[in-house]
């Protein structure tokens, strides 16, 4: 997949400062952001607590709590999870390819503060890998920094799947639920977070808590990166202050009126504008395409993305594809079966894929209620335009 290079900024440019001129090499990076300060573990802990920094990979876990959960000594590695698992998301790839030094500052600064000898960066596209490798050669961090390309599959981006891949194993989540902070890389304590989190840490280290909190919500200050896609005039990645209303984002991107998907293919459809609430993906569907047909294509893709390990996920998603196909063709039993199957898959897998897929499909049936009725009555008369991108094309 190609990196979406279109970037724009509402308000202050922090993470995206300077990238409108292209990739920031070491010199341009220092010129834009200044030199990174040398902070202690206690400094990081305080800063993250003060601004309530949360992980930017989707789970929104407080960074301060993750830090506090690490043992005092013996932290093995800091892992930058750049294997963006949501196929619609572009923000992490964008940071890796345009602002690699900001990400590295965040990761190496924290590794030094934690006394961790390794910094491991998992990416899943060649462009990001190359950008990071070049950046590492441009600096001298006196740490073992490694870039690994992991498979480009939805579930392969899950934290424990990434750790497994970094250790040379298969990129699937293990069946046992373990915390990376206790048993991470080679079963040793590990700090793992996504790319944007490290870039935010680099910004926070420089600005301090006061400076960082000068924009955005008072409860969760700072900026956020949003990927905007679908029926919009200006798709791309936007940096905005936290707390920005969804309507403003849609207007800014030139979205067609119509249903909106928040949070990607593990996210949910909205029937009315709601606060963004940490979601980093916004997709406008417009009104020219058949919503259920679009959802059906994504369902097929979600089913194909199941790592094939866990029965209810494998059989449940395959059944749902069949249910949606029947529903599309006006068979009311497809609707009933879908409702039942949607109740059967959440919480019944080694990772959150079935839960996320169920959220996406359940909200589709709710929000596209009218379209369901039209299909049961013979069809909605609209073509499936493919507004929702499906990686690798439609099966």
């Amino acid at each position, binding site marked *: 997949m190609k990196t979406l290079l279109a970037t724009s900024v509402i308000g202050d440019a922090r993470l995206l400062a300077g990238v409108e001129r292209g990739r920031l090499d070491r010199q341009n990076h220092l010129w834009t952001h200044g030199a990174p300060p040398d902070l202690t573990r206690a400094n990081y802990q305080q800063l993250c607590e003060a601004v309530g920094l949360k992980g930017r990979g989707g789970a929104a876990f407080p960074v301060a709590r993750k830090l506090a959960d690490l043992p005092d000594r013996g932290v093995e590695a800091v892992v930058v999870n750049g294997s963006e698992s949501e196929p619609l998301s572009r923000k992490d790839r964008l940071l890796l390819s345009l602002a690699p030094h900001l990400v590295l500052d965040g990761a190496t600064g924290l590794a030094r503060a934690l006394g961790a000898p390794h910094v491991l960066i998992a990416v899943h596209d060649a462009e990001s890998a190359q950008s990071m490798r070049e950046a590492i050669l441009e600096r001298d961090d006196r740490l073992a920094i490694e870039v690994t390309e992991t498979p480009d599959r939805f579930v392969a981006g899950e934290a424990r799947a990434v750790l497994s891949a970094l250790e040379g194993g298969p990129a699937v989540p293990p*069946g046992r639920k373990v915390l990376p902070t206790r048993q991470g890389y080679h079963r040793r304590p590990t700090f793992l977070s996504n790319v944007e989190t490290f870039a935010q840490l680099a910004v926070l280290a420089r600005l301090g808590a006061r400076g960082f909190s000068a924009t955005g919500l008072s409860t969760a200050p700072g900026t956020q990166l949003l990927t905007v896609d679908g029926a919009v005039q200006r798709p791309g990645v936007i940096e905005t202050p936290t707390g920005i209303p969804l309507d403003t984002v849609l207007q800014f991107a030139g979205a067609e009126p119509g249903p909106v998907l928040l949070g990607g293919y593990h996210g949910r459809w909205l029937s009315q504008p709601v606060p963004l609430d940490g979601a980093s993906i916004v997709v406008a569907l417009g009104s020219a395409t058949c919503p259920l047909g679009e959802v059906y294509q994504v369902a097929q893709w979600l089913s194909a993305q199941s790592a094939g390990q866990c029965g209810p996920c494998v*059989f449940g998603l395959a059944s749902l594809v069949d249910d949606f196909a029947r529903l599309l063709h006006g068979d009311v039993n497809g609707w009933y079966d879908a409702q039942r199957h949607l109740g059967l898959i959440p919480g019944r897998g080694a990772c959150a894929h079935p839960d996320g897929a169920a959220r996406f499909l359940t909200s589709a049936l709710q929000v596209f209620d009218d379209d369901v009725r039209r299909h049961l009555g013979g069809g909605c008369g609209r073509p499936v335009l493919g507004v929702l991108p499906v990686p690798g094309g439609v099966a």
Partner: protein
Amino acid sequence: MSRLEIDWTRCDGHGLCATLLGAAVELDEWGYPVLRGREITAGEGPDARRAVLACPALALRLSRSVNR
């Protein structure tokens, strides 16, 4: 108090657990166990342990409930 847990990467849907512990486990339409999600009572303890030991895939565990 304890709870049943399933390692979904191992469970093959043999369904033995539902036979041995029908009060706490039923099977879905694909033959995989659906846990009723509640605590295993002291009275069910022996049956639950028997089910754990009998699972041919070593997929079933009895865990102490800790809130984390």
